[in-house]
């Protein structure tokens, strides 16, 4: 399940869906990313998220497929918001269910790491000094490369 949307989402609803998937589910791991109100020392008043419609969905579907190949997960759900967001808003949800916790943890973190480096989203921050497109972080590329082992 992949959704790209302006609207907020409910962790409780997503969790419920993951819980009801199958009787053999023993582990559910969820990740939510929030807008932090600090960017180094500058105040971030809000941000705007854009994406590449069509490609985003393809990339995320492929990531879920890759995760399924690597770990015995039952299902994965990804929601990413676009448009205007403010401090403490929810940005992204990734949830994975599985019979076993190691698969659920690994797949959830894998999906977030690759979403960060492969899914075509871009953030523009509204800072007190003006609007600034956010630079990609080397640390995200490093985290992705961990999964090549």
């Amino acid at each position, binding site marked *: 399940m992949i959704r790209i949307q302006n609207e907020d989402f409910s962790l409780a609803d997503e969790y419920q869906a993951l819980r009801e998937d199958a009787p053999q589910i023993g582990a559910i791991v969820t990740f939510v*990313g929030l807008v932090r109100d600090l960017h180094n020392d500058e105040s971030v008043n809000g941000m705007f*998220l*854009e*994406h*590449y419609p*069509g*490609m985003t969905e*393809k990339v995320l579907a492929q990531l879920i497929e890759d995760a399924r190949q690597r770990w015995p997960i039952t299902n994965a759900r990804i929601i*990413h918001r676009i448009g205007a967001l403010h401090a403490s808003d929810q*940005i*992204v949800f990734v949830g994975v269910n599985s019979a076993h916790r190691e698969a659920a943890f690994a797949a959830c973190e894998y999906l*977030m790491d690759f*979403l*960060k*480096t*492969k*899914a*075509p*989203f*871009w*953030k*523009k921050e509204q800072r007190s000094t003006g609007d600034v*497109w*956010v*630079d*990609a*972080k080397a640390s995200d590329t490093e985290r992705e490369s961990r999964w090549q082992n």
Partner: protein
Amino acid sequence: MVKVLYFARLRDQLDCAEEQVMLRDSRNSVAELRQQLAARGEPWLSAMQDENLLVAVNQVIATPDVVVNAGDEVGFFPPVTGG
């Protein structure tokens, strides 16, 4: 003709979100398309020479040798920053 899309910082730099581009040959590589666009001069020259620029052909990330055919969709964009 190919449909070319520009995203985020790149769209702002070029002041262009989407255009139709006539390919020089019936079959061009991604690298050749970049050269063709760079030949327009600034701001295209700097944008197309940026080594961090990413290219997707028909919404799949493409290396410089991937062939672009008439009717394809080509997206140019900076490194992604979602999540």
